[in-house]
């Protein structure tokens, strides 16, 4: 067999960094067999591996819930913080303020985000904190055994027969409305789309909000639920088709500029969007909201990337952070000189 010239042979299971796949993996999952969350963990492992991200340079964060356990099941070589229910955004914001050179990935649940956590979610979206924010969205509280969360659709039914009557929070619409700079929805069962979106999120240096529909096989996978595998499979519609071209792949992709939009992300990677509505542009908030609402009216579950804007400043730009992380600044840059104290004391006499 022939090896292509430009690529040197590597031992199996390491990436371009030379890091083995095992470092991207996590512990054995304790979630239910078949839980959507496990599929998402697998995609995360794959995306970070294939994007050649040093796992030691990643922090993974979560709140509380079955979903929030999942960071234990990916990226074993990354520091992680399983915080409290609904408040992961603040932990993530703080941790990244301290070490803004790290890549942050936060995993939340729909209860963790849309019920108890909606306040921190709203303000995270406004600040454009560079963070991949994943909602593992099953419409229920898995860990407390299946009550409705605030993303449950009107009319969706619990096993107990209780029917939801309150309007669901559409986390994508909300994120777009609030100023998020990367907003997408996917499905835990859609390997290809989810991988592409995750990679694009890794390449984006701002808040990347991904709502991943992730069925709860134990409490919300029955007839009458709008989050069951079968319901989702029947109702999912691609809003657009997402193709990801990493910055390190020197390939030219052929596409029709009339029907495909190319967005260059912060690290030089590109995302190609096609098959979306004609007049749509990925940085048009109003249109994105319109299509989301219309899709919902038609009973469709739209997935894909709805919004990307790579021009907005992120939180760390606004804070004028230095090149090094704040956590690593040496004492002489943290503590002003004695002369400074003298000057201040003089002012106060």
């Amino acid at each position, binding site marked *: 067999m022939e090896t292509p010239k430009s690529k040197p042979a590597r031992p199996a299971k390491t990436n371009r960094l030379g890091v083995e796949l095992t470092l991207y993996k996590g512990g054995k999952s304790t979630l239910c067999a078949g839980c959507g969350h496990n599929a998402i963990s697998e995609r995360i492992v794959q995306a970070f591996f294939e994007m050649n991200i040093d796992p*030691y340079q990643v922090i993974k964060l979560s709140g509380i819930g079955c979903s929030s356990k999942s960071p234990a099941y990916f990226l074993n070589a990354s520091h992680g913080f*399983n*915080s409290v229910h609904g408040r992961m955004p603040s932990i993530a914001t703080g941790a990244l303020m*301290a*070490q803004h050179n790290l890549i942050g990935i936060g995993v939340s649940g729909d209860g963790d985000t849309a019920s108890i956590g909606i306040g921190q979610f709203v303000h995270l979206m406004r600040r454009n904190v560079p963070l991949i924010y994943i909602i593992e969205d099953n419409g229920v509280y898995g860990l407390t055994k299946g009550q409705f969360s605030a993303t449950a659709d009107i009319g969706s039914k619990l096993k107990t027969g209780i029917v939801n009557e309150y309007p669901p929070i559409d986390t994508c619409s909300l994120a777009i409305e609030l100023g998020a700079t990367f907003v997408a929805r996917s499905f835990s069962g859609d390997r290809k789309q989810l991988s592409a979106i995750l990679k694009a999120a890794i390449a984006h240096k701002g808040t990347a909000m991904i709502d991943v529909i992730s069925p709860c096989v134990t409490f919300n996978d029955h007839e009458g639920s709008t989050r069951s595998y079968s319901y989702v499979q029947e109702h999912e519609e691609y809003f657009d088709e997402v193709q990801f071209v990493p910055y390190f792949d020197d390939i030219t992709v052929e596409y029709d500029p009339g029907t495909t939009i190319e967005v260059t992300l912060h690290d030089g990677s590109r995302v190609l969007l096609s098959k979306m509505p004609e007049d749509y542009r990925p940085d048009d908030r109003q249109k994105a909201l319109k299509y989301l609402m219309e899709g919902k009216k038609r009973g469709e579950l739209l997935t894909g990337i709805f919004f990307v804007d790579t021009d907005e400043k992120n939180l760390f730009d606004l804070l*004028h952070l230095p090149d090094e992380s704040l956590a690593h600044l040496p004492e002489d840059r*943290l503590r*002003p000189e004695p002369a400074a104290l003298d000057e201040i004391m003089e002012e106060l006499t």
Partner: protein
Amino acid sequence: MQEPQASTGTEHKQTGSGQHTNDFTIHVATVNGSGSQSANNTLLRAIFYMGIPVSGKNLFPSNIQGMPTWFTIRVNKDGYIARSENIDILVAVNAETAHEDVQAVRPGGLVIYDEPLKLDTLRDDLTFYPVPFKKLVTPIVPVAKLRKMVSNIIYVGVLAQLLGIDMQEVEKALHKQFKGKLKAVELNMNAAKVGFDYAQENFQQQKTFTLERMDKTAGKIIIDGNSAGALGSMFAGVSVVTWYPITPSTSVVEKLMHYMQKYRVDAKTGKSTYAILQAEDELAAIGMVIGAGWAGARAMTATSGPGISLMTEFIGLAYFAEVPAVLFDVQRVGPSTGMPTRTQQGDILACATLSHGDTRHILLLPSSPEEVFEMAGDAFDLAEQFQTPVFVMSDLDLGMNNWMADKFSYPDKPLNRGKVLSAEELEKFEDFGRYKDEDGDGIPYRTLPGTKHPKAPYFTRGSGHNIYAHYTEDPEEYSVIMQRLAKKLETARTAVPAPVIEEDENAQIGIIAYGTTHWAVQEMRDRLRAKGTPTSYLRLRAYPFSDEVKAFIARHERVYVIEQNRDGQMLALMRMEYPAEVIARLRSLTVYDGLPVSADTLTRKLEHMEQE
């Protein structure tokens, strides 16, 4: 109807005694939002420049504009700076409260008042000085809008003349007040002079209350505790500050923003060596602090009671997951919203035990701006050393009032960043465990995110975990962590700021106090000593208590724990841990009405309890 009094300083029957040189209080009654604050600060500072010990306390409403406000300046040659209950000299310019204000002046006192208020008929044991503020200010301030502001400075001039304040010092104070903005200085100096001249022309010189130069303020500064906390934090190398505004803590961060902008921005690159972020609420503020502390930054927030309550869940997480965090709690009157512009020491018990489950936290207890400055440094060191939240328990009186203080000393120790392991250091550990007690002091080693070593990464959690930071529900593994956490706090006893003890050999009575209560205690002790009752004194500076505290109590027949809350919260913490024979000596003396505590009240209460 009485004749309108000629403006000569109407002296009535004097009942106060003798002469008060460098020892009296001036009480200015105005409305808030009217600019009286600059006049009062100018007055304070001018006296300070004369070398005379002076302190100022602002009693203001929880509102922005138009409500009664009182500012009390205490001049005291012996350096007593606690609130005094006497009012010797009243400046009455608020019509709404003027009648009541006059009633509160002690016999023999002076009243400078706004002439149209016609207060001089209210009592005959005071000397009244009517000043036609409006008439005086109009000619010198052409812009009508500015008149209200400037008119207050007139009483500074009047007082300068009546009491003997050097007008040069007033001018110097105005320069400081208006940060060298010459126009403002000039305008205000003019107004002060008008007041001075008016008094000189119209009032008889009084001799009861006079000021004479001293040299007791040389090398001292005037500062509020919140500014001191900001400075302490800056010099402690704080790099992440997240907060949500709340009275009376707001100025901690606002001052920090001011100083950091000046001293912590790289002149070349324009980049900051810090991040300050206004969070959406206190839950987010403390969450960010914990995230940043975990990731290795020195992180802090500042808040007050309601904010503390909102941080409860997160503080439990930081305790159990062992994450450094520094919190300034500038205490105000509780419970609930309480009285946001009044002072109390009411969060002691809440902060020491904050959150459900078995938790216990380190508290630092500053009494003065110098100590807020130092303890800010201690707080960051202790938080990182012990990997746990540390509360700096200030209060409104300390935080927002102007205090005379010694110049702050530049920190003499390098930052103590605690047990943080680099990749190289990790190599040396055979069996590294994030939550393992390697050194027998209860303090584990930690690693920061980004550390490139297979042993470094761990998954921090508030759920049950073992010494390797793995999830556990094992009874034994859980207990090991809990016992180590208890041990860690035991270790902290020896590391926190030690109490300050002033022992009197002849004392049977011991006194324990902390925070701003200190100043009234000092004054009370002098009075008691003068009356033949010597006392020993231990000023607490931290929780958990070091061994000296118990020993001190054991040495005294009875020990008064004096504090500004209803339930004797610090005493409760002592009762929780001390043996019965120690507790038997303890008595609770509390004052909690929201005013800074005075020596008068303390002395009265203690003497009363002694007689019981």
